[in-house]
């Protein structure tokens, strides 16, 4: 059952990535080109209908997926790198360094995600950079805490003590002993953070602080779709479905990864 679900998640995720790649070469047409009447229902030439300017929804959704996925992925990689360093140093060093890093992270953790995102947008000005920074700030606390927890456990193991006794310097201990042994935790958290990242991008762009039109992102498309929800439901259905499928698929894959890397931890509800 579990295995089946993980595989389904991976297939969905694979398809989404393929669609994103296809949009880069405008496989389904130019997302900014006006191809038909405004708010036309699905038909030949525009298989998912058109939007309020007469642009075909299919290439727009594809561009939206690409934008959102790229933005979230880059942000999550930044988070992973920062969290790995912060978490491992805090977990291994303990003491004042640990207190400093963890209290700082907790301050971030105490902000609701969207409030933090709006704050960032106010500082950077609305746009992709604001969305990127928001995703990093929203995902960094949880990942850092979990990496630290894993690092605390690894730091007490005998092979770390043996390395210290041998006279190993800090970079070797952290790089050769700590990092490889918390990498599983990081991999699992990266998938969860990716789904959070997509949600934050969606929320921020929906509010108009993230990706700016005419560039499409899932958040931008959903925001535009809500305006015409009754007149042209196809405008919100496509991006909405993709959004839900993407977040679900990533979470399911994350659960599968977790069961593989951390088999002794509690299973998910599914």
């Amino acid at each position, binding site marked *: 059952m579990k295995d089946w679900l993980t595989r389904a998640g991976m297939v969905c995720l694979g398809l989404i990535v393929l669609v994103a790649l296809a949009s880069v070469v405008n496989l389904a047409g130019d997302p900014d080109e006006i191809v038909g009447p405004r708010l036309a229902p699905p038909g030949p030439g525009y298989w998912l209908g058109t939007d309020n300017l007469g642009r075909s929804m299919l290439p727009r959704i594809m561009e939206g997926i690409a934008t959102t996925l790229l933005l979230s992925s880059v942000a999550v990689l930044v988070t992973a790198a920062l969290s790995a360093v912060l978490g491992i140093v805090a977990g291994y060093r303990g003491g004042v360094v640990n207190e400093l890093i963890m209290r700082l992270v907790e301050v971030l953790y105490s902000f609701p995600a969207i409030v933090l995102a709006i704050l960032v947008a106010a500082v950077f000005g609305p746009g992709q950079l604001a969305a990127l920074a928001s995703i990093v700030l929203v995902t960094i606390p949880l990942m850092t805490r979990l990496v630290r927890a894993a690092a605390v456990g690894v730091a007490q*193991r*005998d*092979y770390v*003590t*043996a*390395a*210290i*006794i*041998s*006279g*190993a*310097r800090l970079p*070797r201990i952290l790089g*050769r*002993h700590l990092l*490889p*042994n918390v*990498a599983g935790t990081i991999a699992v958290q990266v998938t969860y953070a990716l789904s959070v990242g997509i949600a934050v991008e969606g929320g921020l762009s929906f509010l108009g602080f993230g990706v700016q039109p005419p560039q499409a992102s899932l958040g931008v498309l959903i925001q535009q779709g809500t305006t015409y929800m009754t007149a042209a439901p196809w405008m919100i259905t496509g991006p909405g479905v993709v959004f839900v499928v993407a977040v679900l698929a990533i979470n399911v894959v994350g659960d599968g990864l977790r069961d593989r890397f951390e088999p002794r931890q509690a299973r998910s509800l599914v």
Partner: protein
Amino acid sequence: MILELDNVTVTFTAGPPFRREHVHAMRGVSLYVAEGETLGLVGESGSGKTTASRVALGLQRPTAGAVRFEGKPFPKRRRELAGHMQAVLQHPHWSLNPRMRVGASVAEPLAVLGEKAPDRVHEMLERVGLEAGLATRYPHELSGGQRQRVSIARALVTRPRFLVFDEAVSALDVSVQAQILNLIKDLQREFGFSALFISHDLGVVRYIADRIAVMRGGEVVETADTATFYTAPAHEYSKRLLEAL
């Protein structure tokens, strides 16, 4: 003298500043390990054995008292002792990095010193009774006894003058224990290192140690030659320990 602990006290503090609690892990402990000998350190858990080993390895600075290695006070920077002292620790399951090949683990003390000598790694693996081909395996492919042999190889690869065995055989089966103890004895004859052998198991210590020190509540209550200790223990606590054996 390879190692001397002179009136060493280690105090741990815990709790908030206004209600500090002091725990004496070691009180005025004096010990020495002579050239080529094995000192067995026994005592129940919480007696301060492990703290003593941490002090001996320079991982724990004494609150009071002095530690001398080869007649000289401990250097300020632990790294200056790199390669001169090593340890074999308790858990065979965690003694080797699961993400590193066995060969890389054994080579690590050399790598720390900036040396590269793959042939020494292979030679060392064979000296501890393993095939050199094991160097390319990962620890999870090895048995507990094999892993502890790898730990010994790692500890000896820099030819240290002093080794600490902290409950090094306690987690192993009795038959494997005997093999490892014999291996340690053989290697000691060959390499001539001095050792501090810490265990709660009096039978094991009797087999391997030249002299025995008994710790209780952070103090050394008795030090004696192994033969003397097992036939005529002087301290009341030693007698009770031996009776329980």
